[in-house]
């Protein structure tokens, strides 16, 4: 076997092994370099994987050479390759940004351990997307969650501790539910391999145990996903975590949870069971819509911009869940596409906020006054990211909205269409508040002199901003893969 054959596991194993290395070295700069190298290596592996999958179909990798269902199978289909690409790309970009930001926000003696934890969180997320084993999903989920609690609690604000604790409580409940769900399924089928599960479940799907397992899994994943009304941990966690962590988690963690939801609902249980036999399509649609409208409304009234964007994330998750709830191929395409596009826009926005926090120390609406002139590049990035968030063409956000609205119209649900567009309007309001403050309010007289952010921050920010525009114009990759993956998922269940 050559190295190429081990690609599926490389994307996970590289950051996983790099993490203890950081702890052993325990010096800030080398640790950062290791993290940087690991994330880029992983990103490279993800690109190669996606190419391989699009050319020769699903890859099945047997860990340690043990064939499934006895051994653990790593299974890369289009959907996993796609999500893995997003996660690793964001990690790679965020690591470039991290150096200055982390240096200013975290005491130097803890920086090496911070990177170790960040890498672990990353490895866990990458693991969830690549593994084909249900119990393995749980293990990786716990790895990433535990690491996330740690890095969130390292925020400068003391409230970060409280936020991390809150997240820990909710996250643990979610993980427990997932474990119980997996246990129930194992009880009924005797297997943990997801392909096996998918094959064996239909025979026993009419039992209470399977249904209970289904419910536990859905709620558990919903908690990790911050699906309304299980989102209460998210705003605090995002608001008080260090800037790098917020950007990384906002762009990846919830996306991976959406992936897990798609995988479990549409692949393991199958479309027929999840969205037709069980009334989950309706539940997801309603929760998605309520999430979109209520979280957007709350975002409008936030003063702390990190918090504002955190609520906006809850709303955006609503769009993805709504897409799944529509239960047609266009809707699922929109959901998968929005996973991709939302990672780009929120990544760009949170990184830009990190740059502002780096210069100003905080990022409340008041700090934005006159910032358009003082940090022109950073603010321009926020404007473009914001446009993408609203869904203005020609940005990536427009493309996701387009498919989502098409999905709702295909189902003949025009009131839902109206609500989706109403969500865009609300996004317009909160983004506009930023623009108005930055460009049309003079800086207060006693404002400290502020320079533009350093290049090591601007370049990653603008990479993501550029991606927002690029994928708003060239959609061959983003839409192409998403719609193929959606067709695979919907086809698998009938």
């Amino acid at each position, binding site marked *: 076997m050559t190295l190429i054959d081990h690609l599926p596991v490389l994307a996970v194993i590289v950051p996983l092994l790099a993490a203890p290395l950081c702890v052993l070295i325990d010096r800030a700069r080398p640790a950062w370099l290791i993290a940087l190298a690991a994330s880029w290596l992983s990103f490279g592996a993800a690109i190669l994987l996606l190419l391989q999958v699009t050319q020769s179909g699903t890859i099945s990798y047997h860990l340690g050479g043990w064939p499934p269902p006895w051994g653990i199978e790593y299974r890369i289909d289009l959907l996993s390759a796609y999500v893995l690409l997003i996660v690793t790309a964001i990690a790679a970009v965020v690591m470039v940004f991290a150096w200055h930001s982390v240096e200013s926000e975290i005491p130097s003696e803890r920086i090496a351990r911070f990177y170790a934890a960040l890498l672990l969180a990353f490895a866990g997320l990458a693991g969830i997307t690549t593994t084909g084993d249900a119990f393995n999903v749980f293990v990786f989920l716990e790895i990433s969650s535990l690491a996330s609690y740690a890095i969130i609690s390292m925020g400068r604000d003391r409230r970060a501790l409280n936020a991390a604790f809150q997240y820990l409580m909710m996250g643990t409940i979610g993980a427990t539910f997932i474990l119980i769900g997996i246990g129930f399924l194992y009880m009924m089928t005797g297997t943990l391999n997801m392909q096996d599960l998918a094959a064996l479940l239909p025979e026993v799907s009419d039992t209470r145990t399977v249904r209970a397992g289904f419910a536990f899994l859905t709620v558990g994943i919903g908690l990790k996903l911050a699906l309304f009304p299980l989102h209460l941990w998210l705003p605090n966690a995002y608001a008080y975590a260090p800037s790098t962590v917020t950007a990384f988690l906002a762009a990846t963690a919830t996306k991976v949870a959406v992936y897990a939801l798609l995988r479990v609902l549409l692949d393991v249980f199958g479309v027929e069971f999840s969205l037709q036999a069980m009334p989950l399509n309706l539940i997801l649609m309603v929760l998605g819509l309520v999430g979109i409208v209520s979280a957007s409304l709350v975002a409008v009234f936030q003063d702390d911009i990190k918090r504002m964007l955190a609520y906006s994330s809850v709303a955006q998750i609503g769009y993805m869940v709504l897409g799944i709830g529509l239960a047609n191929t266009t809707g699922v395409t929109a959901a998968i596409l929005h996973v991709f596009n939302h990672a780009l826009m929120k990544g760009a926005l949170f990184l830009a906020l990190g740059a502002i926090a780096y210069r100003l120390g905080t990022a409340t609406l008041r700090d934005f006054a006159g910032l358009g002139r003082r940090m022109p590049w950073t603010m321009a990035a926020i404007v473009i990211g914001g446009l993408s968030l609203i869904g203005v*063409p020609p940005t990536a956000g427009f*493309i996701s909205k387009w498919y989502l609205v098409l999905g709702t119209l295909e189902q003949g649900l025009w009131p839902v269409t*109206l609500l989706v*567009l109403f969500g865009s309007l609300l996004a317009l309001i909160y983004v506009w508040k930023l623009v108005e403050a930055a460009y049309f309010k003079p800086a207060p007289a006693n404002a400290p002199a502020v320079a533009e952010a350093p290049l090591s921050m601007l370049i990653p920010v603008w990479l993501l901003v550029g991606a927002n525009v690029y994928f*708003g*114009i060239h959609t061959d990759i983003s839409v192409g893969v998403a719609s193929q993956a959606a067709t695979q998922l919907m086809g698998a269940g009938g």
Partner: protein
Amino acid sequence: MSGTTLLSLILAVPLLAAIGVVLTRANPNLREGVSIGAGVILFALVATLTGNMDWHAPPTLVLAEPVPGLALALTPEPLGVLFALIASFLWPITTIYALGYMRAHHEQNQTRFYTAFAVSIGATMGIALAGNMFTLFVFYEILSVATYPLVTHAGTDKAKQAGRIYLGLLMSTSIGFMLFAMIWTWQLTGTLDFTHGGVFGEEVSEGVLSILLLLYVLGTGKAALMPFHRWLPAAMVAPTPVSALLHAVAVVKAGVFTVLKVSVYIFGTDTIARIAAADWLLVLAGFTILMASLIALRKDNLKARLAYSTISQLSYIVLGAMLGVAAGAIGGGMHIAMHAFGKITLFFCAGAIMVTAHKTKVSELNGIGRRMPWTMGAFAIGSISMIGAPPAAGFISKWYLLMGALDAQQLFAIAVIVISTVLNAAYFMPIVYAAFFKAPDDSDTHADHGEAVLPIRLALIATATLAVLVFFFPGAPLALVQQMVASP
């Protein structure tokens, strides 16, 4: 030059001008020179495009294609070319006017002003030459955003409040209704291209078509159809050159232009004739015409009166489009051109009075014609054009609108046009009369002024002359508009 090169230049010139304005900010004379020069070049480009146009095989410039079949593309068509000609022609004239106005008024942030102005013109070109509804929508939104700094130029709380109403109404209607209608159209037909005779086939029911038409027309907030007209009076806090070119020509015309395009190229006049919503919208347009005229009668602030007059005049065009006959569409298309010259003249005059005599109210204008004969003479011509009497431009379009109403046998529309003509006379003629024939008030403390400064005078004389000239030579615009309704 090939057609596609011309199209890309037409889009690029205003944007390059915007950059040029920023680069030359240290030297105001050079900065305004850039704007005027770009305006002249732009008009020359659009004129060349028109001259070399083969309407049966128009060039298409594809900028991007985010979703297969849904392209950001420019394809000239007669009405759009006419709109582009007017906007690009009036841009340099307005810049000359602005040069006098902004300096006489000691306005701040002039670089931002001219930059946003150039971008707005670029967006207007995009709207005018859009090859499909999607492209039109994109430039429509760019125009809303680009004009925001112009509306809030004064920077006062009142200006900011107005800016919020402005952007809020325009964005919410366009995203809530127009975008919805667009995606729905796409879902039904798989295309948003402007097509002769419309894009809908027989299989789409009339009920759906009615809802779609309502969504499109009400979603076009820039057409200022009641009850979505509030943004236009609010926008009057902007400096007068903005009100003149953007809120009497470019922005509002972009709105009614969209309505015309949708009714001619998305629905087709035949479809409009048979769906019920067209009748409802006809009534709404008629209501807007009369209601806005009545409000205008009661406004003492000159710019506010002009704004309500604009709302009323815009609905003429919507009315023409909703008649569902060729003559109605021709009348609507002509009115885009005809109203432009008259209304920009009136706004120029209002601005001239404001910076020269420091007067903003109608009731203060007694006897002002003796001090400012050129200005008030131009105002009289503009008023005649608004009323639709010969020998001014407004007569031509009203003629076609009436013909359209007769063709469609819409007694309601005829009555509205006749009554509104009387109302127009009632709120414009007293101003002209007072200016020339009433004695100045004794209490006037600001009576020591003369005529407006030269650039202002030049600009308003030019537009007033045009408003008369078009009456005698309506050939070119008429040929373009007739081309629009002719079968390809």
